[in-house]
């Protein structure tokens, strides 16, 4: 807490507002003064917003998100869609959250409060009040700007869906009137200029323009405060024991903060020279085809706000964060901001855990995470990863959630599986982890992704509006696990180098922009040098299922065929006896038995994917085939000197989108071990649990 202030002072070089050239177009500039009242759970705010019109259109109306109104009653679209439940967290019905605009006027004069009206662009729910339109008396001209002063009061709900309070812990996200994104014709999918300002849905996150946030937060002095950006000052007013913390950050598209008197604040410096080995840098440079100097990372101030009962886990938090900074930095580019703050929400505030905001993320551990359970790590690395996919590449989370969550799942799982390896599922008895003691199997996160994809990957295409998925599970699988599996399949198809260059190229080309799935497809085609339209049509924009299988394998010794033949003008008959004699003579001469092998491969799903087949013979010979996979089935026929031992489609399990690996192979002599082993295990387990 305060004991770390001297250390902060030492790093004062970090604290001044950045003087570098802007990284983004900075469409918006927010100056907010907010005062937290812990007793009433409200925030009184004064916001000065400057919005620049970058379009060629004359803008006669502004649109704003009032996200907190999703929690003001059961009639909001969010609550209707979610039923008041999100991520296993239930919303309290005895304390609602809302936001009220008390006054809105133009800085140069002219009240706009009366011009505010609620709209519901996504559905027919007239009771939803999460979006407002403000009619302007004078349009904002192309290249012009408008500055508004807005007084508002935000009442926080009990922690739910990322934001709210729990006792004296406050996680303050989506808390201020936030302007939407005006898309001119040609931006993303826009055919003509229009506001992109969706209602707050249960299955959606956010989308906003980049800008500058200068926010002053006043809280009781005993509160520890963390927020987006760099803390510029903390000025205490001793008369009322209130302290005002000023945070400043450029080139971000949101601002969130947290406050609690119980946080233990620990700060460390991420020093690339110490944290990143030369070997790792060299390996990443080889992968990307770049000189190692181009992968140089920057020091970052890591701030951990941790609960006292989790203090013993601080090292794990920092190590995970360092791994995030290191690997995201090496693979995709250096983290460009000066700080990253990790918030550990208290027990009872799970709804605030596992969330990303610019330069501030929330993690979430438990009382005793097992040594080889990596949920703590995966959450931190994942939420940190959003600084790239969501933060720097500002895709629209309402409409294309896979571009942030799916990309992030892919990247996170690669890091976690590489650095930590397979982990145990968190099975706890009386708060104590037992998976390791019980010898339960360990899984990688990559395996878990495919598990989710197999179970629920059928109803929707990956790309669609968040609120239009079949259900919240489908949204989750299609946003996280299925894209994770899809991108790993793409990596297996191209090879690690090409994929690494595509992902880095995605960041480099669209840094601080708002690209789309189509942009990604174009980038993939360009950087891979192949037309991958077929892949995107089927697996990103389509719902077709993929499954190749070994239909049948027939292997027969070639015997003398019976019948009547004409040989050298003479008809001869080969009966059973004659055939046996011929066979005997052949063996005497040492001629080896030949076999006729017929392999049929089948495309069981609608999707088409080129597949490899490997046939192994008893004598060790290997036959390989490459099938374009277009027909419903294909037949391969061989005459070989040895019987077939096994036939395997996609032997390296590269096509992770294949709905079944079990039917991808055929072995002539199935191994009895697994059957015997698992049957014996089951018998014993039942013997031990039955009365």
């Amino acid at each position: 807490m305060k004991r770390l202030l001297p250390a902060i002072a030492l790093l004062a070089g970090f604290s001044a507002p950045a003087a570098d050239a802007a990284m983004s177009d900075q469409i918006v500039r927010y100056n907010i003064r907010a005062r937290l009242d812990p007793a009433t759970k409200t925030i009184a705010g004064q916001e000065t917003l400057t919005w620049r019109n970058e379009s060629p259109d004359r803008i006669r109306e502004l649109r704003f998100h009032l996200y907190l109104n999703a929690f003001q009653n059961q009639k909001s679209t969010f609550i209707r869609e979610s039923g008041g439940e999100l991520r296993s967290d239930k919303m309290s019905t005895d304390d609602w959250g809302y936001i009220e605009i008390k006054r809105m006027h133009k800085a140069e004069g002219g009240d706009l409060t009366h011009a505010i009206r609620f709209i519901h662009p996504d559905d027919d729910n007239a009771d939803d009040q999460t979006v407002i339109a403000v009619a302007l008396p004078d349009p904002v001209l192309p290249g012009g700007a408008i500055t508004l002063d807005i007084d508002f009061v935000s009442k926080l709900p009990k922690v739910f869906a990322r934001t709210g309070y729990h006792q004296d812990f406050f996680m303050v996200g989506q808390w201020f009137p936030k302007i939407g994104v005006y898309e001119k014709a040609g931006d993303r999918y826009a055919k003509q200029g229009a506001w992109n300002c969706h209602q707050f849905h249960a299955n959606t996150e956010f989308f906003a323009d980049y800008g500058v946030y200068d926010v002053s937060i006043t809280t009781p002095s005993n509160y520890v405060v963390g927020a987006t950006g760099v803390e510029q000052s903390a000025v205490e007013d001793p008369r009322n024991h209130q302290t005002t913390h000023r945070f400043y950050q450029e080139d971000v598209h949101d601002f969130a903060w947290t406050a609690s008197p119980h946080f233990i604040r620990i700060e460390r410096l991420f020093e690339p020279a110490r944290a990143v080995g030369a070997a790792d840098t060299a390996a990443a440079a080889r992968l990307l085809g770049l000189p190692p100097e181009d992968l140089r990372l920057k020091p970052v101030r890591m701030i951990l706000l941790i609960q006292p009962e989790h203090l013993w886990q601080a090292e794990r938090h920092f190590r995970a964060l360092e791994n995030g900074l290191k690997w995201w930095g090496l693979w995709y580019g250096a983290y460009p901001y000066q700080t990253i703050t990790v918030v550990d929400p208290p027990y009872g505030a799970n709804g605030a855990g596992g969330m990303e905001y610019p330069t501030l993320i929330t993690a979430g551990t438990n009382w005793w995470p097992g040594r080889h359970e990596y949920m703590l790590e995966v959450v931190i690395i994942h939420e940190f990863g959003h600084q790239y996919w969501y933060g720097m590449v500002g895709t629209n989370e309402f409409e294309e959630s896979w571009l942030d969550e799916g990309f992030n799942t892919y990247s996170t799982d690669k890091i976690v599986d590489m650095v930590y390896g397979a982990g145990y599922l968190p099975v706890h008895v009386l708060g104590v982890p037992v998976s390791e003691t019980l010898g339960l199997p360990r899984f990688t996160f990559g395996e878990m992704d495919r598990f989710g994809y197999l179970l629920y990957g059928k109803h929707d295409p990956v790309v669609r509006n968040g609120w239009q998925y079949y259900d919240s599970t489908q949204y989750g699988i299609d946003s996280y696990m299925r894209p994770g599996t899809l991108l790993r399949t793409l990596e297996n198809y191209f090879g690690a180098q090409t994929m690494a260059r595509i992902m880095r190229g995605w960041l480099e080309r669209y840094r601080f922009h708002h690209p789309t799935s189509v942009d990604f497809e174009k980038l993939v085609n360009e950087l891979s040098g192949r037309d991958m339209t077929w892949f995107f049509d089927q697996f990103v924009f389509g719902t077709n299922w993929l499954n190749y299988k070994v239909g049948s394998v027939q292997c027969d010794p070639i015997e003398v065929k019976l019948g009547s033949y004409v040989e050298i003008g003479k008809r001869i008959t080969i009966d059973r006896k004659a055939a046996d004699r011929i066979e005997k003579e052949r063996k005497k001469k040492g001629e080896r038995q030949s076999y006729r092998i017929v392999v049929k491969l089948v495309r069981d799903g609608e999707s088409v994917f080129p597949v490899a087949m490997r046939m192994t013979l008893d004598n060790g010979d290997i036959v390989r085939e490459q099938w374009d996979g277009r027909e419903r089935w294909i037949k391969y026929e061989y005459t070989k000197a040895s019987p077939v031992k096994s036939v395997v489609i996609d032997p390296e399990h590269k096509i992770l989108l294949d709905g079944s690996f079990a039917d991808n192979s055929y072995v002539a002599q199935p191994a009895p071990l697994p059957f015997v082993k698992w049957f014996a295990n089951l018998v014993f387990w039942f013997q031990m649990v039955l009365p």
Partner: protein
Amino acid sequence: MTISLALRRGIRVVNRSKRLWFIFYAVLTLAALIPAAALTAIAFQSLGHSAWAEQLGRSLDLEWIGELIASYDAMPIWPVVAAVAGVVAISAIAHLFLLGGAIETFARRQWFSAALFFGGCGRNFWRIFRLALYCLILIAAVYGVNAGLAAIGEKIWGKGSEATPLVHWSWFRAAVILTLLGLVNLVFDYTAIRLVAEDSRQPFRGLWRSCRLLFANFGRTAGLAAVLWAIMLLLIAVYFGISQLFAQRTLAAVFVLLLVRQAMVLARIWSRLLFYSSQCEMYDGIAPAAVVRQECAPHV
């Protein structure tokens, strides 16, 4: 009657009743084979000639489980749960049936004979079954206590910001519940012995009388039970240690572990029978008039 004496005599009695072990073993194994075979058939149906089976020989594969569930187009969880619950219920009833015979053999202090054992099974089944139903009510009450304690913990600390008090409370709750369940088990055991020893058909009355008897001799009865539980836990610990030596990577290792495990199952049965034989001895010591004494001849 001391704990040590009851235990020594109990061990002697169980050790000379080896055929009893095998009857219990056979019934238990049969009950285990049915769901195990069904689950194996469901699980491995998709593998057939698949090469993936070899991978499963090493460890359980999450992706295979995903494929398996997906192949049924929905999680077949409820039919499986219902089938397993059915097997558990049938197995429990079979256990109660056999228990009557085992206690009859121990309480009459006779050598094992099929007539005595199965006669006891039939004669005592309904009274022990009714006793089990009463005990189920007691177990439900214990779970009620558990829910009450959980609610108290939730009320005091549930809305707080720390998990620590709730975790510590869960430990306390677990200790209370295990003690109460142990007591219910103790009451069940002594009442079952009383019903058989007195040839009584009144399990409800027997229940209360046993409670009185138990609490009048609480140190000895509870002490004996504690020692018996300790023996069972020791056996499990020994098994756990030994089983870590076998990685099940070859058929031979699977087979050896199977033997070790069957030894463990027999040890578990032995230990459970020891509860009854020792407690019969203890019951004999604390309520000598009640037991019908028909000592067996040493060499019969």
